[in-house]
């Protein structure tokens, strides 16, 4: 799965994107896998209420299923306009 990070999530993890193999059933399960990897992931995903997630470029919830998803993105609340 392609995993993208934006803004301070990108800075904390230290890269804009990576490819991760996973069998996680939901976004929350996938986040738990990432957090267990290294301290920088644990730091980036410390507070899920401060994060948003998009699945294949559509906003989604953390309990959303990952079946069939090709691209997942994590970022802080958006500040457009």
């Amino acid at each position, binding site marked *: 799965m392609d995993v993208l990070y934006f*803004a*301070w999530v990108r800075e904390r993890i230290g890269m804009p994107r990576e490819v991760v193999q996973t069998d996680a059933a939901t976004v929350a399960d996938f986040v738990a896998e990432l957090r267990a990897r290294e301290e920088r992931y644990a730091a980036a995903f410390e507070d899920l209420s401060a994060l948003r997630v998009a699945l294949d*470029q559509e906003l989604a919830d953390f309990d959303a299923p990952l079946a069939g998803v090709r691209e997942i993105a994590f*970022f802080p*609340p*958006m*500040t*457009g*306009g």
Partner: protein
Amino acid sequence: MRISVQEAPFDLGAETAAFAAGHSDIGAIVTFTGVVRDLPDDRMDAMEIEHYPGMTEKAITAMAQSAVERFALGDALIIHRHGRLQPGEMIMMVATASRHRKDAFEAAMFLMDYLKSRAPFWKREISSTGAEWVAATDEDEAALSRW
């Protein structure tokens, strides 16, 4: 309907004139322009705007389609810049066209509220004291509930 996500500056006058031209069935055009505001207590060197290529265009197109249907717009234009901008530079513009002014005003407000919290842009203010990501506010999120 035209959506443009671009790094380059845009010409507000030329864009507005082009948008207004060629409509005989509309009676109102509303435009909104967002400008990079300097910091209250420090001089901002630049504002950097990051976005999510692909999702940005899709999200804005969906908002614009929704505004066109909801407010019976004749047309809509959204230009949003990304990259490094200086204080005083124009970040973005919205233009809406409708038969009567109420719909054009409301559609512009609707689009601005959605662009603020649902278009994948992230702003960072760079000054002599460092770089700070701009935090989303509860007011911005609450503004969506009126629609």
